[in-house]
Structures are given as structure tokens and as C-alpha cells.
């Protein structure tokens, strides 16, 4: 397995080529979450994730001959960019195999970083077949997590976190394949044995959490935390986690979404789904962390801009700042104006008015009006709807899924 010394050696190896990301105690998040929160901003790595640490450490171990023959990675995500960047910096030819379904931005970004990208197969498992062929041709495979040198590299996150904040009592770590948590645990269990390590997974991909408890599988559906959407975690990582009695929390997709919003609004930091799970875990288990000094690894910031837009918009709806109200009005001149006057009086900002007769399920003499309004908060939204109701209209506040 791996030791704290391996992690310390990795830190020396990657020093200067992988960013030493900032750590910072967040006063406001601490207040909201009821514990002292220290954030580790791995989203500020050049390729916006901690994956560079493991990839760099792995690549540095290659012999001159291996370097000449090149490396292969199979990934549609952060690992692809990490390998592409560091192989390129080290002058090692890299081939990244990505499924044909990979978003174009990611392909372009990986190419930009200097790797040769091959598109092959409908999913990662099929892409892996092509990866094996390339390995058979003599290239070295760089595994995203199931490799002790990769794990040791990822573990360097803990060194930096504890260097900056030696009084940390627990570290919350997002878990997919287990590389990061294995490296962190290997380091802390020797050097800071009193520090509690808590893993986090999405409820739709709880393979590691189940493995620690002795079960296999468990994947149920898609997750916004793609970075940790792993079916088969590393057995080495599971062994390390079990030996150190690491616990793994599971959070819901809604909690991940809320956490991403919280980080955006409070810390003004963009994180991908996986990167938000640490904060989600604290929010979901306040009692477990209450009053403690807790380090949270914001593992990555690569979120699709459209997904980010939805996260923000849905967050606005949940907090009451954006709402859609359906109101039945008389179909006569002036009726809409009278309604809008109430909305204006309530101080809500009108974003959109949809006035429909054709598709509404109301009588011929009536019309449905959908108003999209902007409010200060949920109380203000409810006050606005109440003002409409009190004005004699039948109003219906539409839920998220009917927006």
C-alpha cells in the first residue's frame, strides 16, 4: 500500500510543477454550517482539479524509455486534462481515449493542452478497449485512481491543508474511485492520526461507501457530480480506507446542487458537482461536524456552463428570488393591467408575462397569465402571491418542475 513517506516524496516530486493551491477559512460558511470550515481550493489548479497531482507524480516515475514510448489515459474528464498537461510539460507523447459522446469543449481543451485525442466507443468501458490496444503497442497506461503513485500524488492535498491549518480536526473528501481519499488517509493516519477523514459520495453512485461496508455496486442513476460517478472503486483505496476506519457519507443530488449554489453565492467560487459534495456533506450532517475545525477539499471547478446556469437559476427559484405564478383573469381590456398593478405595488420585478387563451384549460371568458417575477426572498415572494390572492385572483405558484 502507500505510506506517509510516499506522499511526502510525491510532494517533493511535484513541487513547482503543480500549483500549491490556497486554503482559506470561510467565516460566513462556518456560520451557516455550524463548524469552522477551511476550504482547499483545488478548483484553482491550472486544469481546475486536483488530478494534476497524481498524474504528475505518476509521469515523473517513468523511465527514459517509457517516456519515449508515451502514455495512454482513458478519461472524459479531469484526469484527461491533467495527463495531457503534464505529459506535454514533460515532453511525453500522450494519447487520451475519450468516448465519442464526450462534449466538444472537453475534447478541444484536452487537445489544446497538447495530447493526441482519440474518440472511440460509446462509453468509458468501450473506450477502455481501445486504451488496452494502445498499451499493448508499448505505451504506459496512466490510471485515474487505482495506482499507488497516483494516490500518493493526490495525498499531497492533505500536506498543504495541514501545513496551513494544523488545528484541523476532520477532512471531508469527495470520493469516486478513491485515489484522493486513499492518499489523504495514508498521510494523515501516520502524521495526524487524530484527524478524522470523512468521504462523500452522491447517492446515485455510492459504490465506495458500500464497499467500505462490505457491499458491491449500488449505482442507480445519473449524477451532477460526474467526477465521482464511478462504478468500480480501487480495491487498494478501499483497503486503506477500511484500515483507517474512514466513514463515507452519502448526499442527495439536491444537496449537491444546493452546496454548489452556496459556494457560488458565499465564496464566489465555481465548483463542479463533485467539488461541492464536501460542503453538501457538512450541511447534511451538521451534528457530526458541529463546532469542529473541518477541512473541505473543493476538488474541481470544471462545470459545464449550461449546467452552471441551471444550478444558479434553480437556486434562485428555491430561495424565492425567482418565481412563476399562474393567475386566472377575466379576458377583458384592462384586466392584465390591474393585475400587474398589484404585482408592482408588492415590489416584485416582472421578468416575463405569458398571456394565453389558446392552451389554457379555462373558460372562454377567462385567460391564464403566467408571470415570471423576481423577488427579494421567499417571504417577499409569498407576500406577492398573497397580495395577488387578496386582490381577488386565483393564483397558483408553480413548482420548479413546471417552470
Amino acid at each position, binding site marked *: 500500500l502507500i505510506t506517509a513517506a510516499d506522499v511526502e516524496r510525491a510532494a517533493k516530486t511535484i513541487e513547482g510543477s503543480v500549483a500549491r493551491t490556497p486554503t482559506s477559512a470561510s467565516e460566513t460558511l462556518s456560520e451557516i454550517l455550524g463548524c469552522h470550515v477551511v476550504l482547499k481550493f483545488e478548483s484553482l489548479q491550472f486544469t481546475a482539479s486536483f488530478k494534476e497531482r497524481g498524474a504528475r507524480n505518476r509521469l515523473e516515475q517513468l523511465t527514459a524509455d517509457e517516456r519515449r514510448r508515451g502514455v495512454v489515459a482513458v478519461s472524459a474528464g479531469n484526469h484527461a486534462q491533467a495527463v495531457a498537461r503534464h505529459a506535454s510539460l514533460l515532453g511525453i507523447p500522450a494519447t487520451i481515449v475519450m468516448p465519442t459522446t464526450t462534449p466538444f469543449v472537453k475534447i478541444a481543451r484536452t487537445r489544446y493542452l497538447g495530447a493526441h485525442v482519440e474518440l472511440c466507443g460509446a462509453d468509458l468501458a468501450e473506450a477502455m478497449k481501445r486504451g488496452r490496444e494502445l498499451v499493448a503497442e508499448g505505451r504506459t497506461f496512466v490510471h485515474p485512481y487505482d495506482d499507488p503513485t497516483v494516490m500518493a500524488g493526490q495525498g499531497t492535498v492533505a500536506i498543504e491543508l495541514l501545513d496551513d491549518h494544523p488545528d484541523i480536526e476532520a477532512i471531508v473528501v469527495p470520493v469516486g474511485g478513491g485515489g484522493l481519499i486513499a492518499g489523504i488517509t495514508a498521510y494523515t493516519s501516520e502524521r495526524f492520526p487524530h484527524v478524522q477523514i470523512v468521504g462523500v459520495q452522491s447517492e446515485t453512485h455510492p459504490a465506495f461507501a458500500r464497499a467500505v461496508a462490505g457491499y458491491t455496486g449500488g449505482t442507480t442513476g445519473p449524477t451532477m457530480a460526474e467526477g465521482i460517478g464511478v462504478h468500480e472503486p480501487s480495491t487498494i483505496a478501499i483497503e486503506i480506507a477500511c484500515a483507517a476506519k474512514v466513514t463515507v457519507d452519502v448526499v442527495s443530488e439536491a444537496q449537491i446542487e444546493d452546496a454548489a449554489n452556496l459556494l457560488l453565492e458565499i465564496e464566489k467560487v465555481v465548483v463542479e458537482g463533485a467539488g461541492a459534495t464536501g460542503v453538501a456533506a457538512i450541511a447534511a450532517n451538521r451534528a457530526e461536524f458541529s463546532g469542529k475545525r473541518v477541512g473541505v477539499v473543493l476538488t474541481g471547478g470544471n462545470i459545464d456552463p449550461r449546467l452552471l446556469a441551471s444550478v444558479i437559476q434553480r437556486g434562485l*427559484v*428555491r430561495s424565492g428570488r425567482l418565481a412563476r*405564478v399562474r393567475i386566472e383573469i377575466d379576458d377583458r381590456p384592462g384586466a392584465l393591467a390591474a393585475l400587474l398593478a398589484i404585482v408592482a405595488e408588492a415590489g416584485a420585478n416582472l421578468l416575463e408575462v405569458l398571456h394565453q387563451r389558446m392552451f389554457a384549460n379555462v373558460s372562454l371568458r377567462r385567460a391564464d397569465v403566467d408571470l415570471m417575477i423576481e423577488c427579494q426572498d*421567499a*417571504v417577499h415572494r*409569498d*407576500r406577492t*402571491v*398573497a397580495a*395577488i*390572492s*387578496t386582490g381577488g385572483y*386565483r*393564483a*397558483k*405558484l*408553480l*413548482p*420548479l*418542475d*413546471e417552470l
Partner: protein
Amino acid sequence: VITYDDVLDAAERLRPIVRRTPVLECDIRGARVFCKAENLQVGGSFKIRGAYNAAAQLTLTERATGLVAISSGNHAQGVALAANLLGTTARIAMPLDAPPIKREATAALGAEIVLFDRHLRTREEVIEELMRDGGAFIPPFDHPDVMAGQGTAALELFEEVDALDALVVPVSGGGLIAGCGIVARAKNPAIRLIGVEPEAADDTKRSLEAGMRVTIPVPRTVADGLQVTTPGELTFAINRHQIDEVVTVSDDEIRDAMAFARRELDTVVEPSGAVGLAAVLEGRVAGVRRIGVILSGGNVDRRA
């Protein structure tokens, strides 16, 4: 279960929704009495406070499924009104023998009313059936958000009147006195918190004496809103530690108090809402100079 801060949060939520009811003053047996006139509240009772506070905290998706409640009276109106104000619907089960005025008022607020025969089916069965079609159940008293909402009635009273020696509150399931008691204790730790029940419906009094929740047979009393057979689990957990005493009043004493309210305070109070005033008039709250009383509701059938 709930804290003073929860009541403050509820007050913020309710501020634009509820009416700030007046405090009516009079002298009874040498004490100055301050009556919080919740009979003048929107919906005719304090119930909108708890119902709205609970419903407003549902997620939008839960809220959109519509509110569900079971009640013979004021809670039904409170939930119907809350649904209307929150832009959703309400389905409310009411017993066949509920006062017609309360049934009509609930229907007028746009709620769908499902009638049931309370001799043939239990509340649990009726609720289960209603919930089969989905919906968010708003309990009449045994819920933290409901209790916190009811507490805002006392909060308003204490904002206007200081140095009260006693607070007298009608008790049914115990939600109103749970919320109001938390406010009273926060404002004046030494205050006497007195609950009032009809003689026949003294389940909370007995429960406090027994130190555990006691169930009584369905009581017969003129106070139709106080016909609960056992205190709520959550309300009792709070009330057992904060109520100083529960006193009871007879139906005749309740009628006298209603007449007193009409004559001296110029306001109409329903029987359930008058029990606190009755207790003060009968001298069951003795040895105090400044008394707060919650007149909890005013929904009487004026045609009768």
C-alpha cells in the same frame, strides 16, 4: 423542539400576512386585563398563524401538491386561507357535524371539502385516504412550525404591553399555549403561564397531573374548538415544562364570558375563544395585577 428564535422567524414570515389584532383592555376583579383579540384575526381565529407558517416552509414541489388538513373548524379555515395566500390548493376533511358557518367559510376560501362521519371513521383513516392522492399534511397543533406560528400572537401582545404577571391561554391540542408560552418565558421568566380548558375537556390538565399524556372520552362542551381527547406529543413535551397551572371553566361560565366580551369589550368571541376570559372573570387567576388573555377565535354562528 422550538425556540424563541423560531417564533421570531415565524413573525417575520407572517408580518405581511396576518392582521395585527388589537389588544382590548378592561378591569376585572382589581386586575388590569389585556385581551389579545385573535377573534378579529383573518379567518376569525389565530389558526392562520400556524397554518401559514408551516405551509410557507414546504418546498415549492411539496407546496404544489396542495395542502391537506382535517378539522371541524378554525384550523380548516386557517389552512384554506394559507393555501389561497400561498398560491396552492387545499383539501380539507371536515366532520358532518361541523358548524355550518365554519364549513361555508372554508369552502368560500376555495378549499375542497371532504365530509366524513366521525362516528364511523377515525381521523387516521380519513387522513390516510386524503393523502393517497398526495398533498402536504398540515397538522392542527403537533408540529414545530405550527407552534412557532401560534406563538406570534403572544409576541405581538408583549410588544404592546409590558410587565404582565400572567398569561392566560385556551388549551385544546396545546399548540397555542406551547408557542405563546415560549414567548412569555423569554420575555419574563417569572410570568405565570395558565392554560384554560372546559371542565369536560380537561385532557391537558389531567395529563400534567399524571406526568404523561392521558386520553379522555370525546368531551361534550359548548367550546366546539376544544374537543380534543389528548394533548399533542410535541406540544405536551413543551407544555409539561412551562405551564404553571391548567384551570377549567364550565359551559355556563363560558357563556357568561362571551356576554361579557360583547358587553364590555364590544367584540364577539366564540365559546372556545372565551375560556381564558371566563377563567379570569371567575377569579381562577388570582393574586396578579396585570393579566394577558388570548381571545383565540370569534367564529360563532350569528344566525343561531
